[in-house]
């Protein structure tokens, strides 16, 4: 905490933030009461190959974002912050930001998450994917000083309330994807990481490794195919 936060922050927040930093003991179950379904119902309807724990973790993040969206829940926000902010910072540093810039940028990414929580749709993206897209856009804005054109929204009007099973399915898919990525052969995983961090373009990776560009491209393709295969 900063030593004198009073000028910038209204009276009641400082204490709230501090107490809310302590994780709630019942977070994994309590936070799961999302759209009227209990944690047990979540587990029953979902986890096939994944452990209940992994599924619970992903769905707990969804519930936390929903709690931020619907109730401006600071304790849920503190938990999301505690888990994701250090990963966003790491991503930004690997993408070429200085530690100071990455720190500032990460705080803005997390503030955007709070402000735009109403736009989160768990049937379209997992929490990790959604936070990644916010961080990526901030990276383009800050590091590359560019606008980012976004595709037009699909023209079929307001969506119905997100479907529970669909949201669950998507979170599980994403968990599987994360596991598949972690178990790729190291060289393949590194190429994928380099491509996302934008450290190097495919041609620069080729120059650095001394491998022909075609080889780099086909190795990345192979890694993606392997990911797809593991997702089946």
């Amino acid at each position: 905490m900063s030593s004198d936060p009073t000028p910038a922050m209204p009276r009641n927040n400082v204490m709230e933030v501090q107490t809310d930093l302590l994780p709630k003991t019942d977070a994994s179950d309590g936070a799961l009461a999302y759209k009227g379904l209990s944690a047990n119902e979540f587990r029953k309807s979902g986890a096939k190959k994944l452990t209940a724990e992994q599924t619970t973790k992903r769905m707990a993040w969804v519930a936390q974002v929903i709690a931020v969206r619907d109730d401006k829940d600071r304790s849920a926000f503190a938990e999301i912050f505690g888990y994701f902010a250090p990963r966003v910072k790491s991503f930004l540093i690997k993408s070429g930001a200085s530690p100071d810039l990455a720190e500032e940028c990460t705080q803005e990414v997390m503030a955007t998450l709070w402000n735009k929580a109403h736009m989160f749709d768990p049937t379209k993206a997992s929490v990790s994917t959604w936070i990644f897209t916010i961080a990526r856009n901030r990276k383009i804005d800050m590091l590359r000083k560019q606008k980012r054109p976004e595709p037009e929204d699909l023209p079929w009007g307001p969506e119905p309330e997100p479907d529970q099973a669909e949201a669950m399915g998507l979170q599980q898919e994403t968990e599987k994807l994360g596991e598949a990525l972690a178990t790729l052969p190291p060289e393949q995983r590194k190429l994928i990481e380099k491509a996302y961090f934008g450290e190097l373009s495919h041609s620069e990776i080729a120059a650095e490794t001394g491998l022909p560009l075609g080889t780099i491209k086909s190795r990345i393709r192979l890694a993606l195919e392997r990911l797809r295969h593991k997702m089946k």
Partner: protein
Amino acid sequence: MMTDMKKIKHHLTEELLMGYAAGTLPEAFNLVVATHISMCDECRAALAEYEAVGGEVMMGGDPIDLAEDALAATIALIENGNVGKPIVAPKPKVSGLFPTPLQEYVNGDLDAVKWRKIGGGVSQMILNTSKEATVRLLHIPAGTAVPDHGHHGTELTLVLQGAFVDETDRFGVGDVEVANEDLNHTPVAEEGMDCICLAATDAPLKFNSLMPRIAQKFVRI
């Protein structure tokens, strides 16, 4: 957008989708990608997958601690209300020829384009983006050929109206041709309707005859 999505045959490459998801492409390429995705459900779905990969790459990194007061500072940012630029997927505007991301660069639809003749009946409008690459609208009268050319870098050409044919295939509305160093081609607009394309290049084109090469200096192709 009145586009029959089933007709799209030529899609974005994995490399482009991945680069767009990662945020590593030049702005000019991003515009072509965003415009194509606005017209193509298949690439829209593929993009979601590449973004998910990005999320998991981020998750797999070694976490780096933030400053001690970072959470409080973030709450202060929220309360001061001066951050949180939306990642807004633009809503479709009045129906027109151009998908919304393109309309935002043109400041309107087809009738807002300020065409400039570049010779051979072809007109263009260069759109304002970062300098690593350039993107332009091209108007090619029906039956007209764009001079035979090759590429130093990558050229993306997305068809918005009409169609063109080159040595490789036919490209209709929504199709995107990804050309690189290996391709020398002479795109010809199909008879019947003028062809309007959105084309991005990250290096000047290589024209294979002298006249277009001289003209190139003046029209920045």
